[in-house]
């Protein structure tokens, strides 16, 4: 394992630790202590909030903005896929275990290129949209750019994997360096900027379900 890899795995460990700390802080603070008389069902509301309420046909933010919503969804899938690949590479580096398949690598690479385009689209939209500018800050641009870069580096790496063995001398060294440097930056930055919504998103959905569930708005009752 080279120096860059070590740093990136330390960064990943740091990122996980910080995210766990964010999560534990939320857990410690706990659920709302609501003293009003419940007229609905909180668990059912939370379940609805995390399932049906998230479907594109239930949210104007999705069905009224399909291109942006689709780009965002694809970009998120790309991020999770890139993270999964990073973990696989970790297994390879530590235990020598890695499932390498040329066609699979190519498919991953193709999806990552597509996802990078989605991410770029989102950044461009934020840059040119007069409506988004007032609600944007440097963190917004940096967070999305770093994530897109991480996907770009993954795409680059897996494109080479489609044709060469991983860690073979045929894989250009600069690609591996770029990959681990970008990963390191992303993991060190994630817990501080808006990317930490990776943790808070789930808490927000919980609170939303709690609120509407307790009051009987969610899940919607059958019509009278």
């Amino acid at each position, binding site marked *: 394992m080279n120096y860059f890899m070590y740093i990136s795995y330390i960064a990943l460990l740091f990122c996980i630790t910080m995210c766990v700390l964010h999560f534990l*802080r*939320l*857990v410690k*603070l*706990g*659920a*709302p*202590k*609501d*003293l*009003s*008389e419940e*007229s*609905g069902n909180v668990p059912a509301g939370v379940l609805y*909030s995390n399932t049906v*309420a998230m479907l594109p046909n239930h*949210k*104007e*933010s*999705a069905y*009224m*903005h399909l291109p*942006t*919503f689709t780009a*965002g969804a694809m970009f998120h899938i790309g991020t999770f896929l890139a993270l999964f690949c990073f973990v696989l590479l970790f297994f390879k580096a530590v235990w020598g275990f890695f499932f390498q398949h040329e066609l699979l690598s190519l498919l991953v690479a193709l999806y990552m290129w597509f996802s990078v385009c989605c991410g770029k689209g989102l950044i461009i939209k934020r840059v040119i*949209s*007069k*409506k*988004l*500018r*007032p*609600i*944007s*800050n*440097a*963190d*917004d641009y*940096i967070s999305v750019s770093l994530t897109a870069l991480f996907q770009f580096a993954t795409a680059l790496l897996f494109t080479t994997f489609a044709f060469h063995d991983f860690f073979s001398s045929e894989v250009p060294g600069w690609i591996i360096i770029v990959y681990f440097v970008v990963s390191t930056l992303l993991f060190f930055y994630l817990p*501080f*900027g*808006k990317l*930490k*919504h990776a943790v*808070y*998103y789930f*808490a*927000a*959905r*919980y*609170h*939303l379900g709690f*609120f*509407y569930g307790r*009051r*009987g*708005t969610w899940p*919607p*009752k059958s*019509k*009278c």
Partner: protein
Amino acid sequence: MKEPTSQQLDNALSILRQNKDSKLLTHLNSCVHCGLCGTSCMYYLTTDDPKMMPAYKVDIVASIYRRYCTKFGKLFPAWVKAREINEYTIEEMIDALFGSCTMCGRCVKHCSIGVDIPFIVRTGRMMLAALDCVPDSLQATVNAAMETGNNMAIPTPEFVDTIQWMEEELQDELNDPEAKIPLDAPNKRLLYTLNPREPKFFPLSISAVAKIFYAAKESWTISTAMYDITNYAFFSGDNKKAGIIAQRLKDEVKKMGCDTLVLGECGHGSRAVRWEAPNWLGIKFDFKTLNLVELLGNYLREGRIKVDKSLNNQMFTIHDPCNISRNGGLVNELRFVINQCVENVVEMNPHGADSFCCGGGGGQLAMGEYNERRLKTGKLKADQIKATGAQVVITPCHNCVDQLMQLNATYKLGIKIKTVAEIVADALVIGN
């Protein structure tokens, strides 16, 4: 605008630092600034101004949180647009949080993340209350309630006169001298509350409710000391005053020896008492609270009142008050009651939990300085009503009634606006 004192600043920031549960921390850290909430907000839809986006309103509060409560924001404020509390920020907060949001919560349901935007807006209003920056007009309404027991400062003799007048009207209509509107009668089953707009401007709403109670042979009373269901401190963000107003109502239920507090036709008042007051007071109520819509639903199910829907044979539509339908869970119950009492209902699009606010919520009707904006945002509702072709709009909220009447006049809708109690009373079949 005066610079806040350090004590005021501390008080305002302590609101952001509260740690009673994880809700505030969650919502302050969740918004990703996607901006997709804009098209769910009537302010943004009617102005096309990015500063009207719910995300913008959230970010004003979140930016202060980042500046004072996060290390990253303290070290690199420009990086995350972390803002200090100063005159400029406060002015912007007042306009965005008081003047550009009714806290209807429509954006929450459609937010790509699920950020509770009105919760954050109210947190910002709490900070402004701590900074003594609540708009005077709204504060005057709160003060009136604190000083006189009702937000319109109606003197008790005037209220009693109005009720007695309505009682006489009721007796004439029913041809029964025993038909009463009981005032301060102890040990009744129900203590009924109402919006002070009713005795002031819409007394027929009171006689409509009395007629229903007469038909249901209900045991009920109104307290002359504490009949006001409204709680504008909920909107001003002053939890202390909100708690005092709620405590008075709670004490009145006990003093009168009633089992159930009936929340009259006022959206925010109903929400404030039903859902917020126990938390302001830190206690569980040991009496039942029922919204009038729920009570009417019970009467109809139990057969305590009989109605003939052919008596309401015009074309009706329903306006969902945000705090009763979306934020109160009574979307279906409202429709159950109305469908029993009218022949033709055409729904607005969208409606129910997705309904647009009328534009009068969040204390907007009390804040005259935002009248022009309020009526402009209300165009969305006016267009919805027009599209239904209905002749009558039904809504169980006197605040909404007031705004809808102004929309009716402004946009020449040519409609009538009625409360649910009025519709039920019109459909009542009394006697054989």
